[in-house]
């Protein structure tokens, strides 16, 4: 199953030639929408392949323990049961791997314990898969799964990263002493220490970056198909790019690349979570091989809460050194990052490298040091969630700045202005090692302050007070470093029916890539917008693909499409030279037409494609078609940035916080499609508000998850969404052809910072300096009570 997305035909034939309407920068509506609003999306669980059997996963109910036995006899005898597989059955396959190439501070290798798809000797978290049951129907599989007897000798569990580092803490792996997967360090400790020693003021905060559930609305689902005759594997599954997922699976299945195919249809949200291979996929592929039938598995929501990787979960001490005038001298982060029970594919990244890259933000901070201990605990593994270290890094910095302003008696706006990197200093070499190619941080700051009417805040605060509410205003500047470079495919194929297909390896899981990618291609080649399709979910079609993640898609696929278009033009010139009977070097390409320079003799690209389809005879050794399969060289990271301003009202009696106003000014470089960019910001901001106000994964002392359903895990709902002001202040990126910067994760970065700063601002009347996320009613109320008692 692949989903191809094609725009609807325009109202009139001339419409789509009007570049104005579908050109770059136009708010072209998403081409997916008519399908999705009718419920015609094809998500993995909607598939029903002939002969399909159903799998259910048996999971550990203990957070930590030794497996003494798995009794499958009773379950095997139950109606409809086709097969039950445990670790021993999967021994021939490879393990799930962490792909982060970081080293310990002493230069030694990090610990990467192997993770087989099913737990064999030990279970290490509640939800750890131990067996897979396959039956004719889903109900039969569920019933049988319940009948599988797993005997586990429980061991003490540890769920908090800092607790796992304590002497005597339960050990997850024999060969990982002290549970330390990675002892990461960045920066020059001596210089940083010297800067702190000389500082006129040091601000220090300990901050908890909450553990979150990713909670894509579509639970994970997959169908595994093994074709015995061809010794070929097909996995239908959500992903964030089929190329990367295939690479991982090829490794695990130990199969030649041409024997593995990934097909991704519509994806119901992912936010980093569906990017990698999960144990269930290996299990059902194996089951399909054994049974000779397609095997489908779909998680239920309780399963999702423990089996999908979680996000965030860092315990951080942040320190900012300032001189007497408030210039930043150095920033230092010392943290524990919770990895869960295994290293996810990019698990260690958020708390280490991405913290380094992003904490520097829009400020001149000459020195930077980050120490992070990545710890194993008896919890679900932790990995990328919208931002993967980007919102976190910015959050630490912005909280430190507000705290420093309060402590030093400085104005928090002035303190930011003083330290902003100026346009004249760009390109700027940040202490993170990144070189910012573009940006106008002071101007964006000014515009954000104006848009938010900060002057009127005092009056609004008085008005809130009259209604018994505390009001606070928070500022959140941010700068994100988008995902590191990756090769990306730009494929362009002229189809027999006259459509043109873009083939690329990023993957839309809600972003709506089809329209903006088509806008780019249309602008390059003058191909009518409504004739352009997007193909992204079939690994057989790809020669490269970095996938979607780290806000990279428009920049990576955009560059790939631009470069591939240039090749199409080259090939087109050669072919047109035969049609127009002129030398290829005399042919120019202009607005969709190949023209003999200085004449009015020309042929349109679509017409040329039609001639080729019609059997145009072309000399051997010359291009035979306009089709291009191109893999672009990677484009560098970009630096989207901006400033968000939030106002909150707090009811001091109950601790209830409400975000009442929200505005943002953002530099995403050139916007290909402002409509979609705004949508990304909205979504990101609300996820940020969710983390700031309510979301939190809780474990009890046995390692059982307490927030294991949407009733117990608070998700933001419609009424939590304030109107969100969005302004684009583009300063085009200089390092990619479209000048784009990426917008997918920025909303989170702006919201965590601005909302939490606003809450602390409101609570500052009690002398409160910091409050951790989530600012739930109970936590805010407790802080108020404690502050009042302290003051009394």
């Amino acid at each position, binding site marked *: 199953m692949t989903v191809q997305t094609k725009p609807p035909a325009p109202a009139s034939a001339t419409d789509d030639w009007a570049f104005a309407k579908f050109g770059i920068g136009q708010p072209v509506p998403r081409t997916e929408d008519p399908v999705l609003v009718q419920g015609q999306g094809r*998500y993995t669980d909607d598939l029903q392949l002939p002969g399909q059997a159903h799998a259910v996963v048996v999971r550990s109910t203990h957070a930590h323990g030794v497996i003494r036995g798995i009794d499958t006899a009773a379950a095997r005898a139950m109606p409809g049961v086709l097969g039950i597989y445990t670790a021993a059955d999967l021994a021939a396959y490879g393990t799930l791997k962490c792909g982060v190439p970081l080293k310990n501070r002493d230069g030694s290798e990090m610990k990467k314990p192997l993770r087989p798809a099913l737990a064999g000797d030990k279970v290490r978290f509640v939800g750890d898969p131990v067996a897979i049951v396959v039956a004719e129907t889903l109900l039969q599989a569920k019933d049988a799964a319940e009948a599988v007897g797993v005997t586990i000798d429980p061991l003490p569990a540890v769920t908090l990263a800092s607790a796992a580092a304590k002497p005597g803490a339960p050990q997850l792996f024999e060969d990982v002493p002290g549970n330390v997967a990675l002892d990461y360090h960045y920066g020059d400790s001596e210089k940083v220490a010297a800067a702190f020693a000389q500082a006129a003021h040091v601000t220090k905060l300990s901050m908890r970056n909450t553990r979150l559930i990713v909670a894509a609305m*579509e639970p994970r689902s997959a169908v595994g198909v093994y074709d015995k005759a061809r010794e070929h594997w097909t996995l239908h599954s959500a992903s964030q790019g089929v190329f990367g997922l295939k690479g991982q699976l090829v490794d695990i299945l130990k199969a030649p690349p041409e024997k593995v195919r990934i097909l991704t249809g519509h994806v119901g949200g992912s936010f980093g979570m569906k990017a990698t291979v999960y144990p269930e996929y290996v299990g059902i592929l194996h089951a399909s091989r054994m049974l000779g039938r397609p095997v489908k598995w779909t998680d239920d929501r309780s399963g999702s809460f423990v089996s999908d990787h979680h996000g965030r979960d860092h315990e951080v001490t942040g320190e900012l050194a300032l001189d007497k005038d408030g210039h930043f001298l150095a920033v230092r982060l010392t943290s524990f990052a919770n990895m869960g029970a295994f290293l996810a594919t990019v698990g260690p990244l958020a708390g280490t490298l991405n913290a380094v890259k992003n904490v520097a933000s829009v400020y001149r901070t000459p020195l930077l040091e980050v120490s992070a201990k990545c710890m194993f605990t008896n919890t679900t593994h932790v990995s990328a969630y919208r931002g993967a270290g980007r919102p976190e890094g910015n959050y630490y910095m912005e909280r430190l700045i507000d705290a420093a302003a309060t402590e030093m008696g400085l104005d928090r706006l002035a303190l930011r202005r003083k330290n902003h990197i100026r346009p004249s200093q760009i390109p700027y070499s940040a202490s993170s090692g990144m070189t910012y190619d573009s940006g106008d941080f002071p101007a964006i700051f000014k515009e954000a302050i104006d848009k938010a009417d900060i002057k009127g805040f005092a009056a609004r605060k008085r008005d809130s007070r009259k209604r018994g509410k505390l009001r606070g205003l928070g500022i959140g500047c941010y700068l994100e470093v988008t995902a590191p470079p990756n090769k990306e495919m730009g494929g362009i194929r002229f189809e027999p029916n006259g459509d043109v297909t873009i083939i690329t390896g990023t993957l839309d899981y809600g972003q709506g890539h089809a329209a903006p990618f088509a806008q780019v291609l249309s602008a390059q080649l003058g191909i009518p917008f409504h004739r352009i399709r997007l193909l992204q979910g079939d690994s057989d079609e790809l020669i490269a693909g970095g996938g979607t993640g780290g806000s990279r898609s428009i920049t990576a696929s955009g560059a790939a499409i631009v470069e591939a278009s240039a090749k199409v033009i080259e090939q087109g010139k050669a072919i047109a030279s035969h049609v127009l009977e002129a030398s290829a070097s005399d042919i120019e390409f202009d607005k969709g037409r190949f023209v003999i320079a200085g004449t009015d003799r020309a042929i349109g690209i679509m017409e040329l494609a039609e001639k080729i389809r019609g059997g145009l005879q072309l000399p051997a050794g010359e291009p035979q078609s306009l089709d291009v399969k191109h893999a672009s060289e990677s484009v560098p990271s970009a630096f989207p940035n901006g400033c968000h301003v939030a106002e909150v009202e707090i009811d001091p009696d109950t601790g209830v916080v409400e975000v009442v106003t929200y505005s943002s000014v953002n530099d995403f470089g050139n916007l290909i499609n402002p409509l979609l960019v705004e*949508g990304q910001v909205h979504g990101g*901001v609300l996820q940020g508000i969710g983390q700031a106000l309510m979301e939190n994964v809780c474990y009890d002392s046995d390692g059982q998850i307490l927030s294991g359903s949407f009733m117990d895990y608070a998700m933001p709902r419609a009424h939590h969404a304030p109107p969100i002001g969005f302004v684009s202040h583009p300063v085009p990126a200089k390092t990619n052809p479209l000048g784009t910067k990426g917008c997918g994760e920025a909303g989170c970065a702006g919201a965590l910072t601005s909302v939490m700063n606003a809450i602390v601002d409101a609570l500052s009347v009690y002398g409160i300096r910091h409050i951790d996320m989530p600012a739930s*009613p109970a936590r805010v109320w407790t802080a108020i009570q404690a502050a009042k008692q302290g003051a009394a």
Partner: protein
Amino acid sequence: MPIRFRLNGMPRAVEGISPTMTVLDYLRGVERLTGTKEGCAEGDCGACTVALAKPGQNGPEFEAVNSCLMVVPQLDGREVLTIEGLAGRDGTLHPVQHALVEADATQCGFCTPGFAMAMFAFSQEPGGKDDDAIHEALAGNLCRCTGYRPIVDACRKLQPVPAGCLKELPVAGGSMSSGANYCNGGQIFHLPKSVDELAVLRAQFPDAILLGGGTDLGLRVSKEREAFPAVIWTVGVSELKRVSDKDGVLEFGAAVTYSEALPLLEKHFPSFAALVRRIGSRQIRNLGTFAGNLATASPIGDTIPCLMALNAEVKLHTQAGSRWLPVEQFILGYRKTAMAQDEFIAAVRIPLLGKDRIFTAYKLSKRFDQDISTVVAAFSLSVTSGVVRDLRAAFGGMAAQAARAKHVEAALNGQPWSEDSIARIDQAIAQDFQPMSDHRGAAAYRLCAAANLVRRVHAETTSGQPAQVWAL
């Protein structure tokens, strides 16, 4: 006898499936209508929302429900509309779908069918489409992608337009109702039509499960896969659907849903109505009943403290006749009630407030919408010449069962309604309740918040301006 209903305008007579198959599984698995999604199967996310019609004064009225919590026989006699029936058969989008497209209100699209159906039902309702009404209508639907704002924007423009599939179809004739029961594979589902039939069944099958809206029981079916051998469904009993407002008493039949009760609650007890509007979501309130809430007898059943404070009574019925019991005596403990094996709840009645009586209820939870309470508080009282009379204060979430706060009442009754008197309640609350600490809130939070809610009633009733509340 098959279960009869209409699906997107087409008659259905369903046989050969378990009577405890959920509507969601039926739609996706049997009908292969995969537009309706499963996001949780627990009533929390709304991805499974479908619209159910019932006869109204001006033609069919649609309401949004969670198909994951309903079993197929609950469709008996009804018109069911799924996302596949919203657009015209020629693919013309329904205005709700248009509004979603125009507002850029879908991203991954997984939540979208559920939102579209909730919005469709909302569009058919009279009344304004201001932000509060929209938030209420959408509270049962989760979206992780869009940040909701575009969806809220799309809701502002809604107009009542019939579903595409119904516009083009003549309404089919013939009976849509099922028989007295539906059997399959050893399971039986009774659909009594009168109180007498129900009483007979109850006596005959004391082990059969009584099913109301199914918003508590549905979880056992969809999550635990319980296949109840025998079910007696109360909602087809017309007497249990009655609502009356006369002689100073409001009476709701046991099968009256929260949504159906709301207009009268609004009229007489606006504060109770506001609290009921926060029970679950629109989808839940279109199914759930007071009777179900009472019979479940959960310590955090939201209506129970309110009914206690209002001195409401429960009508328990058997073949032999019926008795009225005060709610306080009906609730015996943690999930324990005074209902006998052969009894069922027939109605709940609430005496209207006398002159000068005040009633106020509060619910504290992690979220405003669709959340289980941390603390619920309900107060009814009069203040004459500045003195508190007949205060009835009841709390939920403070103990193993909802209960009146006798010490609080004693501390305030006959006392001046003043800050001095209020100063005593912290101690009184601590005498009344020893709440537990859990991940919803610590014991200290519960105690202090409960006391603050008493302060809040005081502030609201004395100043009419909650302005001073924050400074207390």
